[in-house]
């Protein structure tokens, strides 16, 4: 459902992605691991269409469409969700207002009826419960004053509410305590483990992969995939490090 072919991208004239290719089929979870600065977040941002991330070559096909040809909000409506490594604070805008408007904007693009206030709150409550996030947190301004772990959990509540086809999750596990890691892992499974959905899981740690079992593990280094394997590759990485495994 996501086919990345020979993708090249630069930021401010500096080449970051160097011919990256990757294909995720429906029903699959792929993990991407790699050293700091390898280009993992850059890949996530390029898939999300962040301004300033210039694609200079290659292609990305998403559910039969040219992803790179779409505006960021159109990608979201087409079913692409980006879980941020650093979720953004928006003072003055409550989570409830933000997410209801976002969901209804997506529904409108898809030709669906908007959700009423009551229906939205029921949905939000259900997804907050799934992630064990207090509903009161959703009444507060988006990510403002949230702890690092709360931000990551709120990010998954957003994913639950928006119910995307595909999720790129950039280090959703970092900053989570041990219990929260399990809750988030189970949340990802509940929301995204389905025959018609796909996940790209960017992580530094094997631990999340104990909960969300990947079908494939890729090592990204210097802007390209240098090795691909099964779940055991992550275990080997944990024991031996990038230098030894990716060489």
């Amino acid at each position, binding site marked *: 459902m996501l086919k990345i072919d020979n993708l090249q991208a630069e930021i401010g004239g500096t080449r970051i992605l160097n011919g990256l290719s990757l294909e995720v089929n429906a029903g699959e979870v792929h993990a991407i691991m790699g050293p700091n600065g390898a280009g993992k977040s850059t890949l996530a941002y390029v898939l999300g269409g*962040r301004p300033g991330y210039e694609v200079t070559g290659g292609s990305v096909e998403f559910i039969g469409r040219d992803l790179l040809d779409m505006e*960021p909000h159109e*990608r979201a409506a087409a079913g692409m969700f980006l879980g*941020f490594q650093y979720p*953004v604070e*928006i003072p*003055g*805008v409550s989570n409830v207002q*933000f997410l209801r*408007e976002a969901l209804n904007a997506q529904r409108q693009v898809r030709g669906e009826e908007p959700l009423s206030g009551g229906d939205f709150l029921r949905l939000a409550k259900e997804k907050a419960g799934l992630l064990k996030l207090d509903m009161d947190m959703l009444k507060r301004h988006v990510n403002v004053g949230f702890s690092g772990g709360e931000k990551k959990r709120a990010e998954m509540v957003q994913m639950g509410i928006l119910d995307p086809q595909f999720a790129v999750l950039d280090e959703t596990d970092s900053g989570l305590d041990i219990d929260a890691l399990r809750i988030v892992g189970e949340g990802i499974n509940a929301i995204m483990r389905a025959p018609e959905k796909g996940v790209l899981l960017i992580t530094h740690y094997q631990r999340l992969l104990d909960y969300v079992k990947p079908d494939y593990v890729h090592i990204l280094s210097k802007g390209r995939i240098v090795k691909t394997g099964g779940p055991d590759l992550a275990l080997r990485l944990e024991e031996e490090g990038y230098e030894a495994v990716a060489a």
Partner: protein
Amino acid sequence: MNALTALPTRKDEAWRYSAVEALVGADLDAWRAIDVPAGESYRECLTIEDSESTELRRLRVSIGESARCELFAVIAAGRLGRIEVEVRLAKGAHFELGGVTLGGRDTVREFVTRVVHAEPEATSNQVIRSVHWGKGTGNFLGQIDVVRDAQKTDAAQSFKGLLLEKGASVNAVPQLEIFADDVKCAHGASVGQLDETARFYMAARGLSPELARRLLVQAFIGDAFVALDDEAERERLMGVALAKLDLHL
């Protein structure tokens, strides 16, 4: 044509950033008086929302001992839209102003206030938020006078400008004349643009650039209505402001 001779110039502090040339034909002597008797409360919400030329509102407010006056206003129309308020505070009185200016093209929209703390223990709080685009200008000229005996005065001014496009501008000129020594006067002014990171985050959740901007502007100007304890009025004022933003005029 005798109105011309009475026109102010930009040398006049109160007209420094204004569109004085738009004043031809305006009635510069039309002051409206608001007197709030001792111990009472008064609230008024004003909007300038459908004038194409010059729209001038001048208020002279006198607030009695321990009385309270709250003004909330949106200036969203007029080639020149201007609200001037002169306030005199008696002992222990409070004045609250929440003001919003919005506009594009080559419009000028401004608040000009003079708040006189004439007796001790009075408080005042002015919050102005200005959102402009095109070649639009937003101004806040706020003078605060604290007379010699007005001890324990607490006067605050906050101004923030949000420029949606290059070419728009805002000016904030606080002017403090303080002759008492036990006085708190806080004023802050800042200018910024829409947060690009927030915009991308919102887009990544499915909000179009227009919707994201609308939400961010709503959050920004919301500061001016925090003290307005009337949800329906707050929504009305917000509606007037956002409608102007949607038209992008």
